[in-house]
């Protein structure tokens, strides 16, 4: 119900309409969803995970285990959103979770009746047999029944971002400690980033009644916030939760940019995941109030005393007309006076401690405990036991304070373990657990406002401290009531009770980590913020040990749930990785090319024409063009490295197996690169453009790896060499012009003859193409008379169009990757399908390319016995005998022998159906070079392909090379 006083966050003049389960509801501007429902008299706000118990909000913050809602619909649907932090807005669609039928009449509540069969570890015990039932029967049932909330299954329509932020000082939390730290450091000129999880600064200052100086806490906080906003070196981020602490002063944070808005502004994301780099950081995240275990302590209406005060002061809401207070510390008493000041009836203060004299004006029970509660969908009354017996207390809400847990989570994200402090009965962090992160204020166990302000000033660099309450907590630990019947909840979200922990202990799951996993205590989306310490206390009690000896479980990021979509940001779907487009991309799209992705590159695979309906028809036609006329293919994607300097030749001799120092200017040579272990890394060409200048090419696939390797050689192995190597892959557009008419095409383009004398096979040099300085290489990857012509990338599109038009005039045209592949298999040219990281130069029949007269990377290791010889799988050609086609990936067995792993002679690496030669392939066969002419069986059990083929030389077409040499 709404009260007249309080409501620091409310705009009482503005009503907000939203829907819950499709029914229109109203709240006030400033309300959270849970606050609006409480104001409306609805304490029941959800059902529990396992037993489907009626539940209401326990907290007023992000540690909430119960009041979880599904917001939005379809692609915008978000499950498990905490009603205690979700601000309402006009048009908000909310739905309660975890019930079959209505929230009030949940069919699954029957689980609660069978709770004694569903205790800790029931999965492990119940679903052991029969074994076949697990997948077909048990798992589907459990999966249907389990889980918190649900996704719609539709693609997300929300956008998320990722961003970086940098600062000298990161302050996490803006309660009195955080505000003073930010103000002090900000005034000193530090670059401060103040991050607050809530919708405004102040922490609990607007949730309590006490003053700072002459102002209320809320007014004081607003004043500080205004000064911070005026400081240019201070940046404030609200609605942002720091979720993790990482190496090097890096923190993760999730900002709810649009979660509180009905309409997200155009271009803005729903949320943003921040990576914050901070010189140092202050954790001023406050503390969470603990609950106490007593029978049926999970009824709606039973909540933290601090939450009751927060609803009262922030939203002007009393969760019920009659409220009782139950605590084990002085702090709880404040709840009584605050409620009474707002005109709410307090029916009892129950203090577990004996001999205390609470300064309150209501019925008081000391040395007392709550031993039973009643009320089906919400608390109605409770039984209090003290020295004089059991008393019934009427109350629809019970405010509970079991003490406070400093929010140490972030300090544990790098393996730090908190330590126990007896005086406050709580864990605090150890300084240095996360380098350059300091916990202050309540997060460090300094619970009074004055202490928090002092700590903030000190951490910010020192200065004057405002006056505020400085009351001691005076806590006597009290964890749960003993000697009573009835379940006592520890973890509300995962439905774990004191009995479950007892059972785990009895079954010898006594390590705290074992107990956690057996009972699932603290494993829900709230990560046990409310339950962990209570669970440890019960375990310690059972084991007859002290809490610090039992230890804690591990806190891991994220502190609160982060949408996976936010971690991905915009790098999803089409923007998963950069798209690298070739210079002929526009032309290729105009020609309806189909594309194939080669790493980040999009390469044209084939260009359909006329009546063609399959890729194979197009590819065969394109092959025909190259073999009989002329084809043009974009080969820009091959890596290109410009190597210059007096020691360039020493570098090339080092990285290539062959001897490049004998290469003359104006010539190109094929080269094989080895890894230091002697196996083949890559192959490509090396062209000598001038005395000290070379351009080398790599395969498309290995361009990045080879570049890093070359840089390793020049920077790490031989920093003394005067040589520089730069990737120019993106700077030069390059096209293959291949076929008997290739010379004619280029002569027409260049306007002069290309004689064999001036442009011999494997020659290269500069050319002028319509006034543009380019390069021409007479090299061939097709086995035909061919050239590659290169121009600066900005001329690539124009050149592609010009070459294509000229090729068409000569009876040819563009060809794509499919035709290129057929052409190169016909010639036995290798790609990374062959050099797959297991292949030596000798396996390829290129053993003699490893120059004996110089050192090179991989030379020594390539000479090991195991890397050459007839016991190795050697490159061969394979030609299908009779019908059928060969598939790469097939394994090779002797004909008539039972196929088995130890009878496996090798595999097919590349296969194609050549328009002129039929089904052919490249492959590797043990001692293959000595087995030419033998028949072998290519068997692919996965695809059901079984073909007899003949082993032959890998060069199927024009073995003498007459066509390409001219």
């Amino acid at each position, binding site marked *: 119900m709404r009260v007249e006083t309080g409501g620091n966050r409310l705009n009482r003049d503005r009503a907000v309409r939203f829907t819950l389960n499709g029914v229109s509801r109203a709240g006030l501007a400033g309300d959270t969803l849970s606050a609006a429902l409480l104001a409306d008299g609805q304490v029941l706000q959800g059902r529990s995970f396992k037993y489907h118990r009626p539940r209401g909000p326990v907290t007023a913050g992000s540690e909430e285990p119960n009041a979880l809602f599904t917001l939005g619909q379809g692609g915008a649907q978000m499950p498990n959103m905490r009603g205690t932090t979700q601000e309402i807005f006009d048009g908000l669609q909310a739905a309660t979770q975890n019930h079959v039928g209505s929230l009030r009449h949940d069919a699954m509540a029957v689980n609660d009746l069978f709770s004694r069969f569903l205790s800790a570890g029931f999965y492990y015990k119940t679903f052991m047999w029969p074994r076949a039932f697990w997948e077909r029967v048990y798992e589907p049932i459990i999966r249907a029944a389990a889980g918190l909330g649900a996704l719609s299954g539709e693609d997300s329509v929300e956008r998320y971002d990722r961003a*970086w932020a940098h600062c000298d000082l990161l302050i996490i939390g803006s309660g009195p400690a955080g505000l003073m730290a930010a103000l002090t450091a900000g005034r000193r000129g530090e670059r401060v980033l103040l991050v607050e999880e809530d919708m405004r600064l102040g922490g609990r200052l607007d949730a309590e009644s006490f003053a700072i100086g002459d102002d209320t806490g809320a007014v004081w906080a607003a004043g500080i916030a205004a000064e911070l906003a005026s400081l240019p070196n201070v940046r404030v981020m609200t609605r942002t939760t720091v979720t993790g602490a*990482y*190496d*090097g*002063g*890096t923190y993760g944070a999730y900002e709810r940019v649009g979660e509180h808005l009905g309409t997200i502004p155009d271009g803005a994301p729903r949320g943003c995941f921040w*990576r914050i*780099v901070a010189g140092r950081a202050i954790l001023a995240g406050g503390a969470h109030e603990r609950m106490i275990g007593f029978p049926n302590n999970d009824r709606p209406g039973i909540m933290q005393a601090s939450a009751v005060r927060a609803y009262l002061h922030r939203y002007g809401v009393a969760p019920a007309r009659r409220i009782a207070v139950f605590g084990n510390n002085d702090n709880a008493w404040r709840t009584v006076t605050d409620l009474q000041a707002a005109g709410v009836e307090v029916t009892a203060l129950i203090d577990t401690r004996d001999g205390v004299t609470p300064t309150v004006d209501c019925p008081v029970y000391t040395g007392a405990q709550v031993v039973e509660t009643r009320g089906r969908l919400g608390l109605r009354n409770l039984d209090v036991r003290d020295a004089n017996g059991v008393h019934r207390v009427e109350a629809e809400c019970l405010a509970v304070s079991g003490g406070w847990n400093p929010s140490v989570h972030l300090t544990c994200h790098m393996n730090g373990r908190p330590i126990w402090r007896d005086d406050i009965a709580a864990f605090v962090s150890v300084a240095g657990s996360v*380098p350059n992160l300091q916990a202050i204020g309540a997060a460090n166990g300094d619970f009074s406002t004055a202490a928090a302000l002092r700590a903030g000033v000190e951490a910010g660099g020192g200065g004057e401290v405002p006056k505020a309450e400085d009351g001691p907590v005076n806590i006597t630990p009290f964890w749960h009531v003993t000697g009573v019947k009835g379940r006592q909840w520890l973890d509300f979200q995962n439905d774990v009770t004191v009995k479950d922990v007892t059972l785990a202990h009895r079954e010898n799951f006594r390590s705290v980590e074992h107990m956690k996993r057996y009972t699932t205590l603290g494993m829900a989306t709230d990560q046990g913020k409310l339950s962990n310490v209570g669970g440890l206390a019960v375990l310690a009690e059972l084991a007859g040990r002290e809490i610090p000896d039992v230890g804690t479980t591990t806190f891991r990021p994220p502190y609160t749930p982060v949408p996976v979509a936010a971690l991905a940001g915009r790098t999803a779907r089409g923007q998963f990785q950069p798209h690298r487009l070739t210079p002929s991309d526009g032309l290729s799209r105009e020609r309806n090319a189909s594309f194939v992705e080669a790493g980040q590159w999009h390469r044209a695979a084939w260009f359909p024409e006329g009546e063609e309906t399959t890729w194979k028809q197009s590819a065969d036609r394109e092959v025909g063009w190259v073999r009989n006329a002329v084809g043009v293919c974009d080969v820009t994607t091959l890596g290109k490295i410009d190597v210059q300097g007096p020691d360039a030749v020493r570098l090339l001799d080092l990285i290539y197996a062959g001897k490049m120092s004998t290469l003359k200017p104006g010539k190109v040579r094929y080269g094989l690169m080895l890894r*230091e*272990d002697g196996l083949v890394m890559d192959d490509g060409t090396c062209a000598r453009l001038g005395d000290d200048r070379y351009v080398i090419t790599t395969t498309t696939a290995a361009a990045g790896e080879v570049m*890093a390797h070359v*840089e*390793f050689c020049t*920077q*790490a*192995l031989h*920093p003394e060499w005067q040589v520089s190597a730069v990737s120019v892959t993106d700077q030069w557009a390059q096209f293959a012009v291949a076929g008997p008419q290739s010379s004619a095409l280029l002569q027409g383009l260049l306007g002069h003859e290309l004689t064999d004398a001036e442009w011999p096979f494997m020659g290269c040099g500069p050319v002028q193409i319509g006034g543009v300085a380019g390069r021409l290489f007479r090299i061939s990857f097709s086995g035909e008379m061919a050239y590659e012509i290169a121009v600066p990338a900005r001329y690539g599109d124009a050149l592609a169009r010009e070459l294509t038009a000229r090729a068409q005039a000569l009876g040819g045209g563009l060809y794509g990757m499919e035709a290129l592949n057929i052409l190169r298999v016909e010639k036995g040219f290798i790609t990374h399908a062959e050099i797959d990281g297991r292949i030596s130069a000798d396996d390829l029949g290129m053993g003699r390319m490893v120059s004996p007269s110089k*050192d090179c990377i991989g*030379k*020594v*290791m390539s000479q090991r016995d195991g890397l050459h010889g007839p016991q190795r799988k050697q490159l061969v050609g394979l030609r299908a005998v009779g019908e059928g086609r060969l598939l790469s990936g097939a394994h090779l067995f002797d004909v008539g022998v039972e196929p088995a792993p130890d009878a496996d002679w090798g595999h097919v690496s590349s296969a194609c159906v050549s328009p002129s030669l039929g089904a052919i392939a490249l492959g590797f066969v043990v001692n293959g070079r000595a087995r030419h002419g033998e028949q072998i069986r290519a068997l692919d059990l996965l695809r059901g392909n079984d073909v007899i083929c003949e082993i032959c030389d890998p060069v199927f077409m024009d073995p003498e090379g007459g066509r390409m040499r001219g």
Partner: protein
Amino acid sequence: MRINCPLCGARDLREFSYLGDARLADRPAADASAQDWQDYVYLRDNPAGPHAELWQHAQGCRAWLRVRRNTVTHEILSVERTR
């Protein structure tokens, strides 16, 4: 994790690629013993604690770096270019 590149300043881990033990920069001579080559190519130290490693600022200036890193805490102890 952040590495202070001598050319670019402190940058996030994502900009760097890792090669391994810094001894990979000490390549044996062609006539070194088989054992030396075996050690160079295959054997790496894997200490818990300070370790000299080779990293490349691949998404930055492309410099190869010799980085001393505590493998237990990920603390970066020193960074220098290999040349």
